[in-house]
């Protein structure tokens, strides 16, 4: 065991830190800490500008091979980048779907033409992507899609509805899972991954207001929306494995570095507990210590995962474990956030606005990207080999 990062990794960390210090200034400094989970509709224009600023520094698409404009960074370097990013309070990324979902899928399954067409815009921070996976009747049971796509006259025609799509208004493109063979024997078959331009009459967007009062997500309606016949990634009718493979890997990797973002939230709550006097209550102290320990262990778990999988980048088993761990932790943190505010906790106080938001938002953490029930199923069946 060796818990020191290598000299190269430490140098990389310093490079990231220095760049962020230098560039998180002006308008960007004003949006420090904004645009993260639960706040994804905040300062979108500024964050689009920031994405291009990042691109200018070469900090987008770190993990992509250099031939596609990435840095070819190791998993370690990626995590170091996320950690420093969180430490600096740099704003929530608008390029997430392109960099972590669409890009890797195109790299793995796309044609040379698709690579040339789609990857540079993601690297440059100019093309934003949104994700068209979930539907009203395809949540936990994602394969239960009803959005249909048909190839007619050399174009795909899409009809159906997607939900929980973030940044739908801003994205130029949607990465959509569609049913292309409704006669397929199993519902996982007959699904195709399509790349669909958002700026067309057949696409309409209706924001979904969340319990936080904000609207990070939207419904996307396809009514005879069209895309070129070549805008298919992977085999026609064979999109399920394409979509799932990338999803599992990237969900894992992108959460390994988030612990430092949580440190900021935790520290904020500890500070509030001191301000309100809640920090003197032994029951609150017990919970603060417990959450502190579990937060430390969240990073240790990530480091073990990294050590085991830095080479193969195969995180599908770990993804469920990581998701279940952090979502339960975060929900508990959200409850603590209210408890440290004491008897006037429910009154909206500008000083503690983010604690209210955290409390409410964390209820979604145990639901989106696979409910905790689904995660436990996956852990039991995949990690423990229990029978279906």
């Amino acid at each position, binding site marked *: 065991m060796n818990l020191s990062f290598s000299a190269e990794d430490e140098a990389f960390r310093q490079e990231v830190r220095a760049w962020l210090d230098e560039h998180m200034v002006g308008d960007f400094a004003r949006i420090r800490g904004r645009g993260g989970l639960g706040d994804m509709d905040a300062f979108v224009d500024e964050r689009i500008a920031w994405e291009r600023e990042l691109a200018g520094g070469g900090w987008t698409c770190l993990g992509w091979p250099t031939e596609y404009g990435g840095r070819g960074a190791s998993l370690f370097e990626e995590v170091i980048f996320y950690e420093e990013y969180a430490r600096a309070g740099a704003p929530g990324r608008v390029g997430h779907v392109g960099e972590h979902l669409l890009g890797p899928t195109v790299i793995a399954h796309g044609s040379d033409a698709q690579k040339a067409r789609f990857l540079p815009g993601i690297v440059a921070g100019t093309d934003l992507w949104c994700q068209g996976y979930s539907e009203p009747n395809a949540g936990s049971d994602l394969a239960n899609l009803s959005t249909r796509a048909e190839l007619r006259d050399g174009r795909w025609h899409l009809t159906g509805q997607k939900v929980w799509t973030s940044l739908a208004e801003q994205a130029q493109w949607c990465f959509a899972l569609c049913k292309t063979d409704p006669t397929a024997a199993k519902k996982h078959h007959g699904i195709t991954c399509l790349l669909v331009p958002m700026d067309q009459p057949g696409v309409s967007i209706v924001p*979904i207001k969340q319990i936080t009062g904000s609207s990070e997500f939207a419904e996307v309606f396809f009514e005879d929306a069209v895309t070129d016949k070549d805008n298919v990634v992977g085999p026609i009718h064979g999109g399920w494995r394409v979509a799932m493979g990338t999803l599992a890997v990237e969900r894992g990797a992108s959460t390994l570095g988030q612990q430092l973002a949580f440190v900021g939230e935790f520290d904020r709550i500890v500070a509030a507990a001191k301000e309100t006097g809640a920090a003197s209550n032994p029951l609150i102290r017990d919970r603060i210590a417990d959450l502190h320990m579990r937060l430390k262990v969240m990073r240790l778990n990530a480091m073990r995962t990294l050590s085991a999988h830095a080479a193969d980048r195969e995180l599908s088993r770990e993804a469920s474990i990581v998701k279940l761990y952090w979502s339960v932790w975060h929900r508990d943190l959200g409850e603590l956030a209210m408890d440290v505010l004491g008897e006037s906790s*429910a009154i909206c106080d500008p000083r503690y606005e983010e604690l209210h938001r955290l409390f*409410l938002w964390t209820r979604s953490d145990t639901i989106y990207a696979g409910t905790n029930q689904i995660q*436990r199923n996956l852990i039991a069946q995949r990690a423990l080999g229990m029978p279906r």
Partner: protein
Amino acid sequence: MDFALSWEQTQLKEAAAGFLAALPSARDLLEGRGTLEDPAVWKRVAEEQGWPAILVPEEAGGFGFGQVELSVVFEEFGRTLTSCPLLGTAFATALLLECGDAQAQERWLGAIAAGEPAAVVWSGISAEEGPFGWTLEGQGVAVDGGMASLLVIVAPQGVFVLPADLADRTRVPHLDPTRPSVGVSVSAVPAERLTVDGLERARMRCESLLASEAVGAAEATLQLAVDYSRVRTQFGKPIGSFQAIQHICADMLLAVESARSAAWYAACAIDAGADDAREAARTAKAMACDALFHCAGQSIQVHGGIGFTWEHDCHLYFKRARSVMDLLGHPREHRAAVAQTLLGDA
């Protein structure tokens, strides 16, 4: 022994449920169809239903009914998240009933029975006795205080009453959008001091009402979850057929039924003047608030993404759950008080 609603209490419950169902829902109010504090609704509550007069003694112009009857009504208020504003008035009633002498009861409770809404400021204001009587100074928050024509103030120096228009009131933004709170500010304002030392008894009554309200709300969240689990299909089956969802709902049912037992008993014990009434009210408040919070959170989980949207009622219950948690003592504080009686000083 009959630990169940009597025929009259069942009638009252059904009347309340019927009346509340015909009012604009919490959802309606949130979307601007109707207002949270509607004098016309209050007039009907006071005149048609007479609920503000339930606890008021007959001598003061009320019905002289018990805590149980008022609790039955509050369980229905909780179920629909109706504000009205009956809670503030009931809080004030409890304080006037327990801390007011006959004269004060006749005057102030008489006004409440006659339809004047009221509210209570539990902390933040202090009193001073001067040559011309008591004056109040400070600021606090009153649930349902916006429409109140009467304010009851709990100060370290005693419990005070004053006409609400003597105080400055401003709406306070609040996590719970279904019940209005106002900030109350007073400066050298004269007030009448109530003379009976009944603050703890009054708190006990208020805790009991909050508990009943929470029970109704908790049951509503369970019902939402069960109903949704029957119709929501994933993997070719209603999600309510999955053991994980069934077990969540089974645990919710235990929490709801147990909280109801605790809340009913607290009301009975108060009416009977039982020795354990104080503890029973704490137990009810703690268990019902914990049950509501648990159930409201789990109901969101059972609903999945839809439960996290503004359009669905889940969040209204969840926000109510968190806002009543700290009202009149966090469950933790009630447990600490019960531990004190069981174990003595720490």
